């Protein structure tokens, strides 16, 4: 009973934690992200397009962003590089803080702890040589400070001045990865997106609200992963209940018979059985929840987490944030405790109301 609750609880906790973290991440995303396409495939965008977006009344800001990935062969890992302009505001407050910690005069970048570690291992301590598109090397100094633990998706993060990032990605002067558009009035976001679409034709426009909906759909209780686990758990529950309902075994019947013979009334038997059931189920429930919490947050969800994170083992080490969702706890309570109690009381009641003699025979 405990293990069952623990199992279901773990899955739910992991999902909730990731959902909460993703929701937090999404809040920092720009209202609209515009990127160019060629043959429906990603292409860099011309940053002068941002000026056209600014002409739209609803748009309050349009910032060309430069970011991307760099493959570090020796460490077999991909770094995420984000270029920042000293005087531009990102919608992400963490990035704004990092922007202020960068030094723009000296050729320098900020690394996350994992990147620092892996570069260190490969004997790059004070600087690193990026291999550019044309084969030449670009030496960039490594800052003494480092970035605090980033979220699940940004473990291998490097932050540097936009111009350096441009050089590494071999971007031309007016090339950008995408354009982050802010719209002050949320009522006007969808409309502004349509106007941008009308301006650009074949650009890809993604709106923050859509991302939230997409993710909710993936994590809600109807998705395939949950369904599988739920079905297994419920099936087991029902097996237990069925076992109970199909009558008590002879030993328990005797027990009830004896009690009745001594003079216990039906209500007393039921009350005892009820207390018994309550104690067992509440205890299992609590123990199950605690086990699940320990498993999810201290041991980081182990194997079960991989159901949701399809990426490689690289992601195992990022701690899941502690997030308690009362709705989940309530759900777990409702599906375990009342069912178990019913399963124990009903057969006891049947047994208790039958004549004592019959039972003992």
């Amino acid at each position: 009973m405990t293990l069952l609750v623990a199992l279901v609880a773990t899955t739910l906790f992991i999902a909730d934690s990731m959902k909460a973290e993703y929701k937090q991440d999404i809040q920092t995303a720009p209202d609209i992200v515009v990127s160019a396409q060629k043959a429906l495939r990603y292409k860099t965008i011309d940053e002068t397009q941002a000026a056209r977006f600014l002409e739209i009344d609803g748009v309050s800001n349009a910032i060309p962003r430069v970011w991307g990935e760099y493959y570090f062969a020796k460490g077999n890992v991909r770094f995420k590089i984000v270029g920042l302009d000293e005087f531009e505001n990102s919608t992400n407050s963490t990035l704004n803080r990092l922007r202020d910690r960068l030094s723009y005069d000296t050729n320098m970048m900020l690394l996350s702890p994992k990147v620092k570690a892996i570069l260190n291992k490969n004997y790059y301590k004070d600087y690193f040589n990026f291999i550019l598109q044309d084969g030449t090397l670009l030496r960039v100094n490594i800052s003494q400070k480092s970035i605090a633990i980033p979220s699940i998706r940004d473990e291998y993060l490097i932050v540097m001045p936009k111009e350096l990032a441009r050089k590494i990605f071999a971007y031309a002067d007016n090339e950008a990865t995408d354009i982050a558009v802010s719209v002050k009035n949320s009522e006007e976001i969808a409309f502004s997106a349509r106007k941008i679409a009308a301006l650009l034709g074949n650009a890809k426009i993604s709106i923050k609200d859509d991302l939230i909906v997409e993710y909710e759909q993936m994590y809600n209780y109807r998705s395939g992963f949950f369904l599988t686990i739920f079905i297994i758990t419920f099936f087991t529950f029902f097996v237990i209940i069925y076992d109970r309902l199909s009558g008590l075994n002879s030993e328990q019947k005797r027990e009830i018979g004896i009690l009745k013979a001594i003079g216990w009334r039906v209500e007393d038997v039921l009350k005892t059985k009820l207390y018994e059931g309550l104690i067992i189920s509440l205890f299992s429930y609590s123990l199950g929840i605690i086990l699940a919490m320990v498993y999810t947050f201290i041991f980081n969800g182990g194997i079960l987490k991989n159901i949701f994170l399809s990426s490689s083992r690289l992601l195992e080490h990022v701690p899941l944030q502690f997030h308690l969702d009362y709705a989940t706890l309530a759900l777990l309570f409702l599906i375990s405790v009342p069912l178990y109690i019913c399963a124990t009381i009903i057969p006891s009641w049947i047994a208790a109301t039958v004549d004592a003699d019959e039972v003992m025979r």
Partner: protein
Amino acid sequence: MKLITLLLISLQLFAYPQISESIKEKQLYPMGKKIHTKKCPSLTKDSYQTYDALLLDIEQRSICGTLSKKHSEALALYLWDKEKAHSTHYKKITVTKDEKCQVCGMYLHYYPTWVSQINYPNAESYKFDGIKDMMKFYFNNEEGIVDILVQDYYTLETINAREAYYVTGSDVLGPMGNELIAFKDAKSAKTFLLEHNGKHLYRFDALSEKMVRALD
């Protein structure tokens, strides 16, 4: 001939650029302000006769540190136009969790972009979940009003209601249904009217109780 052309061209090099107001307001001025605050807060345009001279100094003599071309221009524009008429900046209208609309009693914190406010002397003020409700209140309580504040639809800035432009009959509905939508200038009001199928454009003085009630 060639020399003259060259001379004319070089004179144009730093002439005040042709940049639209939107880009200046939304991007260049804020950026220039940031640079000014962070790198050279004491710099002003006072000692410069022309925009060109200011930009030249910023770009070539690095009076504000080394700045890229884009940043230099932003700073120069900000400094040069900084003294442009800065209309009174009203504080942003904020609501707490328990504030309600004075007319209909709805909780305001669910609709922060729609809140409007009327201020009376002695810090007495009332908030509303839309301009329609506010006008209903206004027509019965006109005396002694200090300010009437509404939020511009596109930028959510707090503006003086008496100087604003209003569009009715559009497809954008407020918490009370059909609403008057406020704009800080005629241009954005007209854009909105066209894009969102608005029916009428009014100034504050043209608003009447009958017309406001007709919106219900």
